């Protein structure tokens, strides 16, 4: 998915929350869970069902010292991976 107008959202039955026991973000999904790494957490906190892919890339490009094109590639790859795992949907 390279359409920057597309809007990613958490799939039905998926929750993304901070766990105070582990002091870590967790993705809770139907009979599976993921402990996302720092990069995935940065992206998932921007997935709110309203922001477009383009807006998510803009936000990360403004915060991290890397070219927008590089970030766009990384974000698209990670989001598609999360879609394939059933965590996100377009």
């Amino acid at each position: 998915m390279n359409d920057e107008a597309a809007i990613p959202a958490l799939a039905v039955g998926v929750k993304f929350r901070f766990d105070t026991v582990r002091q870590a973000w967790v993705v809770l999904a139907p009979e599976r869970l993921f402990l996302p790494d720092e990069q995935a957490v940065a992206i998932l906190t921007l997935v709110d069902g309203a922001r477009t892919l383009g807006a998510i890339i803009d936000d990360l490009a403004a915060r991290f010292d890397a070219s927008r094109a590089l970030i766009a590639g990384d974000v698209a790859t990670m989001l598609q991976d999360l879609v394939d795992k059933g965590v996100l949907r377009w």
Partner: protein
Amino acid sequence: MVNTIDPPMGLVAELTHRCPLQCPYCANPVALHRSGAELDTATWRRVLHEAAALGVLQLHLSGGEPTVRKDLVELVRAAAALGLYSNLITSGVLLDAPLLQRLVQAGLDHVQISLQDADPGNADRIGGFAGGHARKLTAARAARQAGLALTLNFVVHRQNLTQLPAMLDIAEVLGAGRVEIAHVQYHGWALPNRDALLPSRAELDRATATVEAARQRLKGRLVIDYVVPDYHARRPKACMGGWGRRFITVTPAGKALPCHVAESLAGLAFPSVREQSLAAIWHDAPAFARFRGTSWMPEPCRSCDRREIDWGGCRCQAFALTGDASRTDPACEKSPDHATILAAVAARSTTPPDFTYRRYTNAREIVD
């Protein structure tokens, strides 16, 4: 070195052994509890509090059939208030639209409905419940209409495996986000029914190819979890992700177990949540420490480079097939007992024998 024990990820709450179905591969023990032996609502609520405080993230409401419990909605509401992700594992035959509505309002996150086959007649024969299949389909549709995330669970074996493509179609048509194609694991009631259930190697290979093709076709739309049978495997499974590592199970009567089959192990005393907190059990119970990590391992596990991948496989399978829970899982081809697995496959009859159905009258023992 400090020996830290990570908190469990999941609590499997077996609310009851009562169930309208009689599946011959049920993972419940062959000794069943009646309702009088079940934990009451207040105790379950306390267990949920203790689980959340201990670090449990997901609650799996199981059984038996959990919807026979009158307090199911109340327990789901309590779990939601604690931030626990709640998963209802059900046969679906008692799950009507009004109950679904109440469960959704209480905060239920996900429902898993089991189907015994894609063919209605055979499904009802395997489950031992006339009309069950139709009720399950109705429940699955109602779950989607209620906006719930839905998993369909198909336990597969030699008496329904040819229907696998139709099972995947049902999952797609009903709008499930996830489907489990789980070959029978030979514990509980499945072990005495092994000859009636175990597929041939060729049947297994066909099923695996079907699943692989469907995964490609349905990528991003339907998650397919596939559980292969140990009896045709070269390496064992990481049972429960390792003993005392990720899951804690509480039985209807309140026993805390590292796995829902562990009560079958002779010689281990499992603590009761009626007497101890979940945290005390997780951190201190000798039965949880017994097979945790790698230090208990015999050879060939001890020096195996997969010892922290499969954690020695399944303790209950080792016990069931060798009489000694501390041996390497015989499913592993490196196990000195692997011949017991090969012999069972070789001795498999051409025609499947009759089922021994899971019912109180066939139970080895009944606890009131």
